[in-house]
């Protein structure tokens, strides 16, 4: 139930698990979590108030959604194998750090601007749309961008904010590693067609059905 995607969002709701596994489903989940450790996976619980598309359970009890996610983290090489480009990862990091610093909501224009500085304006537009479709971002009724269900399920925002707050500026890194080629020395950026960006996020976006 947790692995197979049924509908738009993966994972299972607490009432679905209760129906399938009985009242003691939490114990089953704890055992599953223990068993998944060997595979470097874990069961992640996400509260309903942070998941706008989750409705309360049939018996009115507080709704949770459970996912299975990677327990550890990916190395850059592994991340490349999943089809994600550095640009996409950097854009998502910039996006999330800005939204979190603004208490979970930010204007779309502001997000596109901060992503655009890293990956170009045109690509920023397509990436923002892709993040929206894949559930990393959500748009509220006032048109503000907020953190989406997938971010709650996949990202350790505290760790990300800590890393960004403690980071050294690029100049400091260049000083330490004189051999490294700085960003400004890179050739003019060639923007890619929208299809390429879409394809990179296909795995995530496909969850939207």
């Amino acid at each position, binding site marked *: 139930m947790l*692995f*197979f*995607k049924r509908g738009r969002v*993966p*994972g299972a709701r607490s009432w679905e698990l209760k129906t399938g596994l009985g009242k003691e489903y939490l114990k089953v989940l704890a055992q599953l979590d223990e068993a998944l450790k060997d595979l470097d*996976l*874990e069961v*992640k619980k996400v509260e309903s108030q942070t998941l706008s598309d989750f409705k309360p359970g049939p018996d009115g009890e507080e709704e949770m959604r459970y*996912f*299975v*996610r*990677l327990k550890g*983290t990916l*190395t*850059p090489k592994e*991340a490349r194998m*999943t089809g994600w480009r*550095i640009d996409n*990862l*950097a854009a*998502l*990091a*910039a996006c*999330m*750090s*800005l939204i*979190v*610093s*603004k*208490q979970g*909501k*930010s*204007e779309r224009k502001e997000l596109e601007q*901060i992503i655009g*500085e*890293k*990956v170009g304006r045109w690509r920023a537009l397509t990436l923002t749309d892709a993040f929206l479709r894949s559930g990393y971002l959500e748009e509220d009724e*006032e048109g*503000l961008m907020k953190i989406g269900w*997938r971010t709650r399920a996949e*990202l*350790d*925002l*505290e*760790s*990300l*904010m*800590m*890393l*960004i*707050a403690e*980071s050294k*500026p*690029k100049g400091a*890194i260049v000083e330490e590693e004189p051999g490294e080629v700085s*960003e400004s020395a890179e050739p*003019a950026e*060639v923007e890619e067609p929208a299809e390429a960006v879409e394809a990179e996020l296909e795995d995530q976006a*496909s*969850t939207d059905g």
Partner: protein
Amino acid sequence: MAEKTGRVSGRRELEELIQTCVSIENRQFNPFLLDISEALRIIRRHAGSWKTLGDNLLDMRAITSLARVVGLQSANLRFQSSSLFVDPGMVKQKVESMSREQLAGFLLLSWHPVVELEQLTEASTKEALDYWQKMLSFFERRKRLQPGPFDSPGAMDTPELARMRVLEEKAFGRRLEDLRREMKEKIGEEGRVDYWTFVRASNFAATVLRAQMVSFLVSYGMAMLERKKEKMWLIPRDPPFSTGQGSPLSLPIPIPMEAVLPRAK
């Protein structure tokens, strides 16, 4: 009279207050920029003078908006005391100063992708088969919509399809070659032609089309684009062409409406 003027200015003040609250809710301003006690004082000052339903509704909207701002202030304080608090300005500065590799690295250290599988199961296959067997045939379903009899298939010739823009009248390569020849005819003694003189056509759509074709000529090495300060020149090349001669640079050229107007006039 004075009472009426007071009501008008009171309405204006409340509307301004609501507008400020909305801007704060839309994250345009810091919620602490609004002086709540001053705002309450304004609401209280006018509360006695409201007589119509509209005025009372405005008063209620102002109080509700103010309550939302107080809520945001409270959330802001709670957030600032949490470990997630970082000043937005500082975050922007940090992100701007970091390389893409650095940012991607930080994301990877905090990223635990969800595992999800898509697969046919016995139950879902049975359900699908059941659905398929119960589904009415296409012709049965079509009858319900009452769309009338089928149109018999007709035939179209090539000029008609070209007029509908389904088919191109000329092959693309042929059109490029024609344009290169036209360019060659238009070059002056200097062996080049001004970009806008060549690209400009009688209407905007035709100009855009010519600009697009010229971009292919340059990319395929059939012409060269020379840029000197504000001026751009096109220089046609003679065969044999090779893509290696094509321009390695992308040069965005906006096409303003004014570029087309002189000829259109």
